[in-house]
């Protein structure tokens, strides 16, 4: 490590003003940022920890919407959303390992938008609203390609509002060494239709599989997407798997998620 300033504000307003400083960087659970700093791939002058802000923590359900504070850990979501939104709790309970789940936060995950992260699939798959200190952003507008989001410089995710579906499930095919998603699919069924979001697979990052959404909205069963296939073009082709394999897995994971959610 190298020297940097560390501040831990107690309110969103204080955090926002701290973020206005030069080379300031918001710190959630640090599960990505700290290793990145150790590798010297990032060297912020000031770390603004968000974990001391009580308003940014906690899980609550009201009027069919689950609201999660931006600084809420995966472990908290896994336990507290289990009753209201089991599909999301299941996703949270399989992120990384216990150490990661007890440090990492939903805000950190969404702000980073790693192409193999789990939470972006849930946010996009539910049509969530990303609430920041300045505005509200619809998930469909928020994700802008791998490691890229609609967040402005210094903007802080204070909470995420996820419409609770009638049924949902997340299926993840893990890369066996790191246990990151080689392909992850979140399926959510609402009264007005089904949403399907895919993580891990595409060079564009998390994205919706609209053909499957249409088919599943008409008939919410695994057989509804039997004839559909995903093109290998644009899929990640790397040491862990070819684009063709990932494209194939998108179909399999979607069917598994539908079967598990039905």
């Amino acid at each position, binding site marked *: 490590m190298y020297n940097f300033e560390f501040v831990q504000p107690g309110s969103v307003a204080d955090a926002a003003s701290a973020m206005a400083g030069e080379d300031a960087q918001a710190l959630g659970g640090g599960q990505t940022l700290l290793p990145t700093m150790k590798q010297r791939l990032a060297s912020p002058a000031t770390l603004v920890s968000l974990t001391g802000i009580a308003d940014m923590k906690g899980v609550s359900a009201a009027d069919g919407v689950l609201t999660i504070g931006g600084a809420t850990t995966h472990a908290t979501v896994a336990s507290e959303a289990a009753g209201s939104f089991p599909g999301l709790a299941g996703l949270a309970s399989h992120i990384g390992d216990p150490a990661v789940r007890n440090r990492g936060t939903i805000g950190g995950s969404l702000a980073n938008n790693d192409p193999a992260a789990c939470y972006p699939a849930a946010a996009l798959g539910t049509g969530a609203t990303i609430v920041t200190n300045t505005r509200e952003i619809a998930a469909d507008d928020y994700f802008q390609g791998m490691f890229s989001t609609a967040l402005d410089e210094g903007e802080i995710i204070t909470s995420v509002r996820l419409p609770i579906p009638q049924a949902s499930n997340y299926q993840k*095919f893990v890369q*066996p060494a790191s246990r990151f998603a080689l392909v992850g699919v979140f399926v959510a069924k609402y009264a007005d239709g089904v949403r399907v979001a895919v993580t891990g697979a595409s060079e564009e990052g998390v994205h919706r599989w609209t053909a499957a959404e249409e088919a599943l909205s008409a008939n919410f069963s695994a057989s509804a997407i039997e004839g559909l296939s995903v093109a290998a073009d644009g899929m990640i082709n790397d040491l862990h798997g070819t684009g063709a394999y990932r494209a194939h*897995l998108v179909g399999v994971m979607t069917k598994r998620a539908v079967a598990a959610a039905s």
Partner: protein
Amino acid sequence: MSVAKPLPHDAARLHVTGQARYVDDIPTAAGALHLAFGCSKVAHGTLQSLDLAAVRAAPGVVDVLTAADLPFANDVSPSAHDEPLLATDSVHYVGQPLFCVIATSHLAARRAAGLGTAKIEPLPPIFDVETALAQNSRFEDGPRIYERGQANTALETAPIRLSGQMEIGGQEHFYLESQAALAVPGEDGDVLVHSSTQHPTEIQHKVAEALGVPMHAVRVETRRMGGGFGGKESQGNALAVACAIAAMRTGRPCKMRYDRDDDMVITGKRHDFRITYDVGFDATGVITALDVRHDTRCGWAQDLSLPVADRAMLHADNAYFIPNMRVESHRLKTNMQSATAFRGFGGPQGMLGMERIVDHVAGHLGLDPMAVRERNFYATGAAAPPQSTHYGQEVDDFILPGLIAQLKDSADYDARRAQVDAWNAEHDVLKKGIALTPVKFGISFTLTHLNQAGALVHVYQDGSIHLNHGGTEMGQGLFQKVAQVAADRFGVPMAAVKITATDTAKVPNTSATAASSGSDLNGMAVRIACDKIRNRMAAHLAELHQCNVAQIRFEDGYVITPAQSYTFAEAANLTYVGRVGLSATGFYKTPDIRWDRIKGEGRPFFYFAYGAAISEVVIDTLTGENRILRTDILHDAGASLNPALDKGQVEGGFVQGAGWLTMEELVWDDAGRLRTHAPSTYKIPAASDAPDIFNVALWDGENRADTIYKSKAVGEPPFMLGMSAFFALSHAVSACGPDYPDLQAPATPEEVLASIARAKGV
């Protein structure tokens, strides 16, 4: 009797409490320095210049060495003098050390190493088999060819003929303790090197060459390694030599340990192989002719590649008599890490090739592969004279038919195979497979002169015993097995025997602890040393009591004469007072072996070790995911010196072998960079990957060869039991369609899925 007891590992308590001392745990004197290599980022090129100004200026840096700073030999090769410690005018792989940083801490050295820049004029690299063959980039002048009979003529007349090809991936050793060395300068140019090595004598030899001193000026000590698997047979040379040179240059203790990423990028791995075959057989599956070709990528330096590739050829028959057999082996020089020794030393690749051929023949004929195996086994029993291997060694100890019959019975193989077929008929998404694969593995170094060992035993006047031998402890339990031999020879409890670190000043000119030979060679040397002392003690007591030497017994901590019993301590003291020496060396060499590796003829092995495994697996035909459900193993350790330790070797060997063939995948990119250089990208099997049902038993039988207490070597042979998981996967995939699955290794989920498509003919 202390032999044959299932005693725990001698250091088990130290291992689990964290007290076991590895090289990096040895306390160093104040002022100790730490080393790190700066490595090439280019796979092949001409080294034009190094800019090390920023390295020298970095915090904590004491000195930086380049090839020009080395005092004498710049070579860490175990064979052909083709591995400079630091690159001179050319670089040959991504990861090749170019310079060495000496700094006040491990981290300071590593950080500074990252600041160096090298100007390298790139040359076209050679990575793949085709390019290497096209450019005749190889070790030795041409291929080695071993042949018996007339393979090509017999292929022409064979009733049925098949050909095929299999790619077999390499494997990272992934010892838990990465490579490490510590050099402590002594007086008058002497140096003491602590090295995590399977081969202390080689370290001593290379350090002496590098310092320009006789071997007597260099002492190497190795108490234990945190795993070796062959990866510390030659790969520790660079660290030990660098530390010794730095220690002599600075006058301070110097230590080096590779970070995991550095270790994976710099050091060699298991050789990958391409096996190409043309096989002739009849309708019952009897193989009459085989022409098999091995192409292996050896990396940039010769290292141990010739004997590794030789051993692959020597195991290309596995357990089968093939009257007309030809093996052609190409050892290709490529711009990658220098492939090196790894448990099995080429044997697994050669053997896997043969089992693949059997699997293919069976698939073609629609037979249970086990039936084809049994039809081609070497002859056994009183009625049949022994048959010879393709290199002319009689297989006169072939026990596989009996061993397999017992295993099939205990694991209920025939019924379970039928159950698997029935289950597959009813299930579309999941398919099961089951396979039994045998192992016949030759024991001895194929370089005949290495089959020797020495021991040094002292009995102190209080009856305690100091035991030393040339073998090294890497977690396998060698020290305990050899200590059991010593305790048995003197008839004393284990506590009387002190196990001590391997030390080139105590036992010289040792061979690597390799080729599974540790217990065979060192156990015998220790027995010989102990018996010398025991005979002297007996002779002295016989003289005191005017009795016959043969009447004196060493039992249960006592030395018993017809007239009187002494505790062992009393007997030792009496012998000491009687002015009789209580220290002895022992020396052993394996008898009855001879080998001409150019002709491919002789009797390279003292005996064969055998084993067999049955694995049952399940695959998901939608994703290729797979699991081992159950494995049953019956393995031949002869009359085991320690059944607990031997079973541990069998279990670990199987899991490591199955990992090699099902999940461990090395990936280099187009620039020759190893992309799988950390546990986040390279998956080794964990405890949860072992079969849920895992029945391991040792075959109840003595070694027919005259080995230590009639035991058999057990380090490498069980590794190849992992083949059963691979061929069970092949069986499961074959249930998906009419065609042969042509499964390649490693059978990752993506590969299994691809082979399902091949089986379906799509």
